[in-house]
C-alpha cells in the first residue's frame, strides 16, 4: 500500500461537496500516501461518509461544523498535521480530481533539493489539457496581478497542488477564509523568506471540474477580498 518513503508526509485535501469524484481521488492518493487529512468544509452531499470509508487506509477526517471556505479548510488541515510531531512535509491537493498523484509525488521529492515550498504550475513546460481561451486569459491576468502584488516571479499563482516543508506549513497561518488564500500563501512565502520553486504539473480539466471550478466572475470576488482586507 502506502510507500514508507512518505511516512513523514501528510496530504491535506480540503473538501466541499465533491461526492461525485472524492472516492476516486482518495483511491488514487491512498495507493501512494499513507497519511491523508481530509478537511470537510461542512459538505451536504455525502462527501463526509466517503472520506470516513477510507479511515482504514490512512485518511483522517476533520470536520468543520459550519462552512468556512477553502482557505479556512486548508488552515485547519495545517493545524491538524502540525500536531503530528513526525510530520516533515505536506502536500496540498484539491478534491475535485484535477490533480495527478504522480505530480504530487514529484513535488514532494523536489523538497529534498532544499526548498521550503514547491508550487505546481500548469503553465510551466507542457500545456494544460483543454484550457479554454477565456479561462486562460483570466488566469494569466491573475498571475500577472498576483506576481505584482506579492513581488514574486511565478508562472502559475492559483494552483491547488503544492508541497511544503514543516517550516513552511508552520509559517502559513492563513486568515483569508475564501478563495484569496492562494495569494496569501505566496505572501507568506515572501514574508517568511521561504525558499521556493515551481514544478510543471498537469491539470485534468474534466467537464466536472470545469463546472465546479472558479467562475470568471468569482475572480472579481478574489480581487476585492485581497484589496479590501
Amino acid at each position, binding site marked *: 500500500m502506502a510507500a514508507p518513503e512518505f511516512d513523514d508526509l501528510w496530504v491535506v485535501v480540503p473538501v466541499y461537496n465533491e461526492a461525485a469524484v472524492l472516492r476516486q481521488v482518495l483511491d488514487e492518493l491512498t495507493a501512494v500516501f499513507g*497519511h491523508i487529512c481530509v478537511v470537510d468544509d461542512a459538505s451536504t452531499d455525502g462527501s463526509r461518509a466517503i472520506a470516513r470509508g477510507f479511515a482504514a487506509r490512512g485518511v*483522517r477526517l*476533520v470536520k*468543520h461544523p459550519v462552512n468556512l471556505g477553502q482557505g479556512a479548510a486548508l488552515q485547519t488541515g495545517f*493545524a491538524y498535521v502540525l*500536531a503530528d510531531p513526525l510530520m516533515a512535509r505536506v502536500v496540498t491537493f484539491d478534491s475535485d480530481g484535477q490533480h495527478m498523484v504522480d505530480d504530487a509525488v514529484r513535488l514532494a521529492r523536489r523538497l529534498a533539493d532544499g526548498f521550503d515550498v514547491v508550487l505546481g504550475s500548469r503553465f510551466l513546460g507542457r500545456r494544460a489539457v483543454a484550457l479554454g481561451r477565456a479561462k486562460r486569459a483570466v488566469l494569466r491576468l491573475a498571475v500577472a496581478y498576483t506576481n505584482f502584488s506579492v513581488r514574486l516571479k511565478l508562472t502559475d499563482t492559483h494552483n491547488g497542488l503544492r508541497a511544503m516543508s514543516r517550516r513552511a506549513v508552520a509559517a502559513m497561518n492563513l486568515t483569508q477564509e475564501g478563495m484569496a488564500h492562494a495569494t496569501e500563501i505566496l505572501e507568506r512565502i515572501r514574508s517568511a523568506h521561504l525558499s521556493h520553486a515551481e514544478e510543471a504539473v498537469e491539470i485534468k480539466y474534466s467537464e466536472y471540474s470545469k463546472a465546479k471550478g472558479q467562475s470568471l466572475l468569482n475572480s472579481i470576488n478574489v480581487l476585492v477580498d485581497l484589496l479590501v482586507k
Partner: protein
Amino acid sequence: MLIKILLIAAVLAVGATLIRGHGARRQALRRLGLILFAVLAVVSILEPDWLTWAAQKINVGRGADLLLYTLIVVFFSYVATRHVRDARTQDKITALARRVALIEAPPPRDPPGGGGVAAEERSAGERSASSGGDS
C-alpha cells in the same frame, strides 16, 4: 404639531437605546456624536428653517438637500463599519469552528500496538488528544 412630537420622541428613543450599549473607549466618541445628532434633530424639528439656514451657509440650497447628503455620508460610514465588524465576527467564527473541528478529529497517528482505526471510528464525536496546533 403632532408630527413634531412623534419625531422628537423617536429621536430620543433611538438615542437612548444606542447610548446604553457597552463597548470600549471608542464608544465615547460615538456617544458624543449621538448627543450632537439628537440635539440637531430636535432643533431641526422645532425650527425647520434652521436647516435651510445651515444649508445656505455651505451653499447647498435647501435644507432637505443637506439632510439627504448627510444621510448618504452616514449610511456609507455605517456600511463601512459594518463590513469591518462582520469580518471580525467571521474571524471569530472561523477560530471557533476550527477549534471544534480539531477537538473532534481523530489522532493523526495510530498509537503503537494497533487498533487505532477501530478506536477512531468509535471516538468520532468525542474528544481526543489531537486538538493541538496553532490558531
